[in-house]
């Protein structure tokens, strides 16, 4: 069973529906034991970093997430909270990925909203994906490139669109809203055990 982390972030049900379309059952939960016993954990989210992290800390979910041993996929805000620090509300992250989350400079439209392609690709999560494929992004903050960046994207500047380290995976875009290529990424993630 796939567990989708429930917290105060919007549109979590979209992830559930996407898994449903792919034939996977999931539960939306914030119970540590459910998360620990799941085959895969998805850490989704559209929302604000500060209040999301407070919510996780109040329920001691920050420690739970960091210590998960099964495959974990952070999406959008989920990716940002897995980093060391976010400029959004000066938030300390879970430090899985050694990088900083910053606000886009407003030299172009912010948020970065719409379909964009990746400029460099490696790693198992992106198997079968090319630099011509486009994914749906909506975000005003970005993770700086680091040693765990396996997919780059360029908007205003190059940033981490996909991160991968041990059992932790993360995408800045929304695979659940990215058409068939997004589904491919969800399937790649679910293939891990």
């Amino acid at each position, binding site marked *: 069973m796939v567990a989708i982390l429930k917290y105060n972030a919007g549109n979590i*049900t979209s992830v559930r*529906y996407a898994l449903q*379309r792919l034939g996977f059952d999931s539960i939306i939960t914030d119970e540590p034991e459910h998360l620990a016993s799941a085959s895969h954990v998805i850490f989704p989210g559209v929302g604000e970093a500060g209040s999301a992290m407070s919510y996780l800390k109040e329920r001691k979910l920050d420690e739970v997430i960091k210590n998960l041993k099964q495959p974990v996929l952070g999406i959008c805000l989920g990716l940002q909270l897995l980093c060391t620090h976010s400029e959004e509300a000066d938030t300390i992250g879970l430090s899985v990925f050694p990088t900083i989350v910053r606000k886009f400079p407003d030299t172009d439209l912010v948020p970065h909203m*719409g379909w964009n392609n990746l400029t460099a690709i490696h790693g198992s999560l992106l198997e079968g994906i090319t630099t011509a494929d486009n994914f749906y992004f909506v975000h005003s903050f970005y993770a700086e490139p680091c040693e765990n960046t396996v997919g780059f994207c360029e908007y205003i500047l190059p940033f981490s669109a996909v991160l991968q380290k041990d059992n932790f995976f993360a995408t800045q875009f929304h695979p659940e809203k990215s058409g068939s290529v997004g589904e491919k990424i969800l399937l790649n993630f679910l293939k891990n055990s």
Partner: protein
Amino acid sequence: MLKKRIIPCLDIKDGRTVKGVNFINLRDAGDPIALAKYYSQQGADELVFLDITASHENRKTLLHLVTQIAQNINIPFAVGGGITSVEDAQRVIQAGADKVSINSAAVKNPKLIKEIADVLGSQSVIVAIDIKQVENQWTVYINGGRVATHKEAVHWAREAEQLGAGEILLTSMNHDGSKSGFAYDITNLIAQAVNIPVIASGGAGTYQHFSKLFTNSKISAALAAGIFHDNEIQLTELKNYLQQNNIPIR
């Protein structure tokens, strides 16, 4: 590179698409889910559903439909029509929509934009603006274009941005349905005046209209209804054409 978006718009009444669509081999041409699936397979970048149901009791039908759409399509979609409070917006988002579109309600109560943005985030608030050019001035209209306001288009777009709008959906009533091209000048003017995405609507009739809209412009997206529903323009062909004309497109 960030791509320009093409967004088909579907009018919904009592849970059904209003305009019959006869080009798809559908058993039921009024089924919004079948149509939504078809458009997403054809390469639509996003969809907008506009609920034109008049009565209040039919809101439940709409919410049920929103959930079904969310279950069935794998691209983002917005829902507009009849959203006059934060609670309305929350219900639509909780049912599975990614964005809400507000129009007259935002003009009558501009604070609504901020209230929704504070709760759901700016990225989920589209402020739809209907405008009409009268004596060289672009005036904002409400109630489906029936009532003129005292607001001027650029000024209102800026105000909406400041209040927390995530996108502007601009429809020129002078151009809507004309198939003679978009309102290029005013749409570009507004795209220059704000730092959020602007979606152009009204007037699309040919492939060239789309490429003109996107060439050397900050306009992020184009929305159209009739030309797609009547199959005058096929989405896949339109996207091929734009790609050949060096417009960044998915």
